[in-house]
């Protein structure tokens, strides 16, 4: 079933979660696949954790050049680490990305943004598929496939108690005792963190260094799947391939690629764009000649709040812990369904809290130290239709750039405050006290959940088919967040991966059918 000329039948742009997920069904079907990305790391291997160089705590926190000290206060700590800097590095400059009142994250690295994701792997509810051209049942197989492949553990109480910190455990137990149907639903967070050894990945050791790069590779990163894919003879991976433009030449689609400063062309009958919403939108809008015309870019308007479980104030900070999401909640208001994650703060750096306290520094440090073991930090996300961001490609000095503008939406702010108020009430009933003045509305895009530029099953020039295929250019598939028809409040990464898997199966169906 290989390509007749030895050339790839499918080129996948991007090695992030969507790229890898779309690749698996196609590779398993024996079709010739070339995956390209712009990373400078040509190696696809998983070094054992013991090979990972030891880094001093201060260096992993601030980096050798202390650039972490300049991190803005109103951005998630995960975007301020040295790891995040290396992952985000070069993306904006190479794409000519300019953002205004918007936090735009993208990556050229192998594995893309999955290197710094929060790892929450929660599927959309059936009702959250409203507006999609297919129902939840169309995703069931893909959700199961992805969960099995990346090692998502079962959501058992035993598992939760092993990973959750004491205040989160107390909170959840109380919730289970008091549970009644209503607007607030709380559950143990399901994270893509393996609890048994997988290929090149060790079970989570609860070292607490989740934000700074998991030493045991327990937190899923799509780059971890490249060695397994490379064992297939029909799969090729090429790094340092930055796609500058797309084109069409007869029956084949052409990618103009920059490699080590030189430009070359890659051709295939089927192209899958999985470079991340921003990069994919940039390339596709230019291909569609959709210039200087704004396009809506969906994000989840986000807020954060802190809660204290008083019984734990002054407790000893644990030597080991798990820093990712502990609990996941959904909150239903009259008009929408919001969602969020509750994190333990016991192993987070004290200065992050101290910086927010209006005390003198010694008092702030001591207060942060005493409160940290009792502190829970919650995020809150609204569905994407509350966002008012626009993205457009424009020409400047004969070069095309991408601009994103965030726009304040008073409606979203009112809704977020409403949800936080309701959440505070629920948390109070569960024994957690809201920390005064801790509620904050985050900058647009701070959630890093981007999507909806080319909605599947939508109407209009920019919409795609139910398989994420460009209507005006058959066999160009978009497999990342850019094709999500809606952006519900639930974290979209797992759904993006499952959708990519679904698209991958469809590509296999079509290519094998045409070969027959």
């Amino acid at each position, binding site marked *: 079933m290989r390509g007749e000329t030895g050339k790839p039948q499918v080129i996948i742009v991007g090695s992030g979660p969507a790229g890898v997920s779309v690749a698996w069904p196609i590779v398993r079907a024996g079709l010739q696949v070339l995956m390209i990305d712009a990373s400078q790391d040509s190696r696809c291997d998983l070094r054992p954790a013991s090979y990972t160089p030891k880094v001093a*705590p*201060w260096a992993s*926190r*601030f980096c050798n*050049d*202390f*650039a972490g*000290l*300049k991190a803005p206060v109103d951005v998630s700590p995960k975007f301020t680490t040295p790891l995040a800097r290396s992952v985000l590095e070069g993306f904006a400059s190479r794409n000519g990305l300019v953002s205004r009142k918007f936090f735009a994250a993208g990556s050229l690295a192998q594995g893309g943004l999955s290197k710094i994701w929060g790892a929450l792997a929660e599927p959309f509810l059936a009702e959250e598929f409203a507006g999609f051209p297919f129902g939840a049942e169309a995703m069931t197989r893909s959700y199961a496939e992805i969960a099995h492949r990346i090692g998502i553990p079962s959501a058992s109480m035993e598992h939760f108690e092993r990973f959750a910190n004491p205040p989160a455990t107390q909170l959840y137990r109380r919730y289970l005792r008091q549970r009644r149907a209503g607007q607030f639903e709380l559950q143990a967070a399901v994270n893509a963190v393996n609890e048994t050894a997988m290929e090149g990945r060790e079970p989570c050791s609860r070292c607490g260094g989740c934000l700074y790069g998991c030493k045991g590779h327990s937190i899923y990163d799509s780059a971890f799947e490249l060695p397994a894919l490379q064992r297939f003879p029909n799969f090729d991976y090429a790094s340092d391939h930055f796609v500058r433009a797309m084109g069409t030449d007869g029956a084949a689609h052409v990618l103009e690629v920059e490699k080590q400063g030189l430009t070359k062309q890659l051709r295939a009958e089927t192209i899958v764009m999985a470079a991340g919403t921003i990069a994919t939108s940039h390339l596709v809008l230019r291909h569609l000649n959709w210039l200087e015309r704004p396009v809506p870019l969906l994000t989840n308007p986000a807020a954060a709040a802190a809660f204290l479980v008083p019984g734990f*104030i*002054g*407790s*000893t*900070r644990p030597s080991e812990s798990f820093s990712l999401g502990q609990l996941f909640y959904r909150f239903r208001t009259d008009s929408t369904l919001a969602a969020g994650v509750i994190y333990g703060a016991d192993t987070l*750096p*004290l*200065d992050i809290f*101290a*910086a927010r306290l*209006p*005390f*003198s*520094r*010694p*008092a*702030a*440090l*001591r*207060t*942060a*130290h*005493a409160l940290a073991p009792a502190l829970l930090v919650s995020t809150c996300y609204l569905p994407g239709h509350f966002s008012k961001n626009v993205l457009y490609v424009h020409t400047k000095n004969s070069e095309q750039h991408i601009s994103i503008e965030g726009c304040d939406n008073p409606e979203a702010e009112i809704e977020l405050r409403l949800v936080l108020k309701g959440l505070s009430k629920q948390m109070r009933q569960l024994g957690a006290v809201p920390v005064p003045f801790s509620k904050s509305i985050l900058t647009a895009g701070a959630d890093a959940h981007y999507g909806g530029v080319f909605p599947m099953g939508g109407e209009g020039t920019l919409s795609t088919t139910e398989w994420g295929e460009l209507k005006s250019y058959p066999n160009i598939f978009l497999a990342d967040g850019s094709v999500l028809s809606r952006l519900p409040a639930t974290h979209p990464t797992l759904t993006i991966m499952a959708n990519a898997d679904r698209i991958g199966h469809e590509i296999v169906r079509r290519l094998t059918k045409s070969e027959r």
Partner: protein
Amino acid sequence: MSSGRYSHFIITGGTGYLGEAVTGLALAAGLRVSLLSPHAKSRIGVRHIAWRLGEALPEEALDPEVPPAQQVLIHLAYDWRDTDCEAGINLAGAYLLRDSARDMQIGRCIFISSQSARPDALNAYGRLKSHIEQLFDAPNEISLRVGLVYGGPWKGQYGLLCRLAMATSLIPMVLPHQLVQPIHRNEVAKGIMLAAESSIAGTLGLASAQPIPFSQFLDGLAWRLRGGRLRLIPIPLSLALRLCILVNKLPFLPRIDRERILGLAGTCVISTKDDLDRLGLRIHPFTEGMLGEPAARRALLQEGRSFFRYVLGQVPDQSLLCHYCRAIIINEADGAMRLPRILHFAPWLLRVVEPLGASGVLARRLKLATALAAAHPQTAQVLDHGGRAGRLARLGSALWLEMIALPIRLLATKMRQ
């Protein structure tokens, strides 16, 4: 090896404040160096030839392996005891040196003069330098008028000013608003190297093109060396000269040369911008140039120590201090803040002057110190000490002190605005 025209430097006064810097730079550039001085001072790669000011250039000063035309004479030596502008040892020595260099057909002669060189200078030093400049008038000879030199070891005039800036916060000073043109010692050395390679003849200014008041120079020294301020009391020249005599009679005080006071009083601004452009030399502003000085690093360490003692309540670990200094140098490209000395002895006083809000240098640096401390194991030891009861007690007392200090902090913040 150097790729320039010259490969051997003969330096008179090469063991002095400026001479050491020139020697070091020449050696680093792969040049051969011979030092002419009465006292042998061993230095790897340097040839020492016994010579006194007033003697001609000895034959053995020339490197036999290098043609004379590829050798450079740099005349730095000066005898401060000589004030005779007609037949003193400085003038006679310069004559002899120049003539012998010309006889030996040395390729380039550089005379290091001074910004104060004028026929009508107040001090003999300025008048002598002016006279000697006249001697070096051949096409391959150049005189460099060097401004107020700072940086490096505490020697010469710079050493005296550093000791003054460190010793006191209040100095009686003649003409504090007199304009001076500072230049770093390493920049002077670089300027001499560039002058050697150039074909420029005559007189060239080697000093900052942006003059600053002398009071600002001294205050900048106090800032960089000890993170403090230095206030000057203007006094008349006659009184300054009398005080100089008095101070020099008292034990344990820095010796102040009358010649230097007169030199400062008689300094005139020279235009150096074109000269520096011709040489291709860039001179850093004074406060920036001082940042690389060991004393400036020490001041930063002292600041860090005070801040950590305030934040942690105990003397910080050396590694924590090193992180602080590196973080400031990398992130802020600046040195120590100006803090009242009392804060170094009693850092807990910062509790009442720490500004509310995050703006301002003090608030930013305290925040930085807190962030670095929070990531250091020492902090865990300090804060975990005493069990839960102890932690809660410390939290209570910290918040209680916070309440007491709040009104004063509010007032301090308001006053700073």
